[in-house]
């Protein structure tokens, strides 16, 4: 048995070579939501929502979120109602059967920037801006990748030809993507007065997007701590009972 384990470990060590480098190494940021006790930085997430609303939502939808969900990053019911009422959404039909618009309510989903995919492509040179509801979970090492991408618009290496309608990015697989640099210093006037550098905005928007991908993360980890502690206790207790019961046999 021991020999078996040694062989296994040896083969595991051999079978772990360097990863194929298709995705450039992405720098790691210490996020507040990392780790078993991680939580969302609500102030940062609210700033990130402001960035999403003012910049990203012009092209990117977030169709899996409703305005009422925003209470999850610390906004109160009144603020949420006001944010929703600011937008007009399709409101069914009138008595003549014609489609009408109405102001949004908290129960509505985030307003889509385009009525359908074709319209989205037409407005973006044939490229479809992906929905942002799950973008963090839909990418390997999501938070760090998106943060790196937003800061990764650099000059292409000397001599490379950037195809028309594409932009060079250090971290996008293949290096060319259809989205031009979305964030620039001072682009957003943060409500809480924080200085809006690209670095700051990218961190805030990643915080917001991570929350959007997984609004229940804090609940999950909090319950997890309780469950794991309880099970650790149970393992000890059951082991004690087992030992006591088996004592007469030995």
């Amino acid at each position, binding site marked *: 048995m021991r020999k078996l384990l040694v062989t296994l470990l040896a083969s595991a060590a051999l079978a772990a070579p360097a990863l194929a480098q298709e995705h450039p190494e992405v720098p790691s940021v210490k996020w507040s939501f990392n780790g078993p006790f991680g939580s969302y930085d609500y102030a940062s997430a609210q700033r990130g929502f402001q960035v999403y609303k003012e910049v990203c939502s012009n092209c990117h939808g977030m169709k899996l979120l*409703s305005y009422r969900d925003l209470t999850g990053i610390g906004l109160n019911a009144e603020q949420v109602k006001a944010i929703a009422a600011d937008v007009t959404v399709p409101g069914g039909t009138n008595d003549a059967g014609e489609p009408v618009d109405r102001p949004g309510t908290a*129960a509505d989903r985030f307003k889509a920037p385009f009525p359908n995919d074709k319209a989205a492509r037409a407005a973006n040179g044939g490229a479809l801006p992906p929905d942002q509801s799950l973008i963090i979970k839909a990418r390997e090492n999501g938070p760090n990748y998106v943060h790196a991408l937003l800061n990764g618009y650099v000059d292409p290496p000397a001599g490379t030809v950037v195809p028309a309608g594409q932009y060079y990015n250090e971290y996008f697989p293949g290096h060319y993507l259809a989205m031009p640099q979305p964030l620039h210093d001072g682009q957003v006037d943060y409500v809480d007065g924080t200085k809006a550098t690209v670095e700051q905005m990218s961190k805030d928007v990643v915080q917001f997007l991570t929350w959007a991908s997984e609004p229940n993360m804090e609940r999950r980890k909090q319950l997890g701590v309780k469950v794991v502690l309880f099970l650790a206790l149970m393992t000890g*207790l059951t082991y004690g*009972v087992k030992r*006591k019961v088996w004592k007469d046999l030995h």
Partner: protein
Amino acid sequence: MAEVATATANVREAITTVGNQDVTKRDFLKLLTGSAVVIGAGSMVWPFIDSMNPARDVLALSSVEADLSPVVEGQGITIVWRGKPIFLRHRTPKEIKEAVDTPLSAMKDPIADAARVKAGHEQWLVVIGICTHLGCVPLGNKPTDPRGEFGGWFCPCHGSQYDTAGRIRLGPAPANLVLPPYAFMNDTKIKIG
């Protein structure tokens, strides 16, 4: 005090001398473990049951706001709340008087008109538009609908008739049209639920 102490000592001795083993210790561990198992298993059940409760998107639609300003006197509109039709009737002074003056003895499910409306807004009647007999939607909200003898609503399914306060007056229905929970946000807007 001395008797209690002796009695306790006797009990303790009795427990510890049963069998060859340290019974109290083993039983305590088993009891603790057993109760922990029960607590653990029990708490695993709640998420399943709670998942069947209304989800957050359902709860978000659990209240609805209605604008009353387009509803002129004598008219009624129907809106939907929690999947049910709600009748919003703007009563004329004549209809209010009829409802107030009706003696309680004439009603199957007696109740005063004042209890059917909100104080200061007596011209507005807000009821769930489901007949209390077998669940049909009574007629009477549209201008072309028959309203029955009592000026309220007429249920075509089995002939129940309701008055201008939504109270059952004739027919097989046992109770008045049900009032939903609602409140006036201002003179022209109500929030139901």
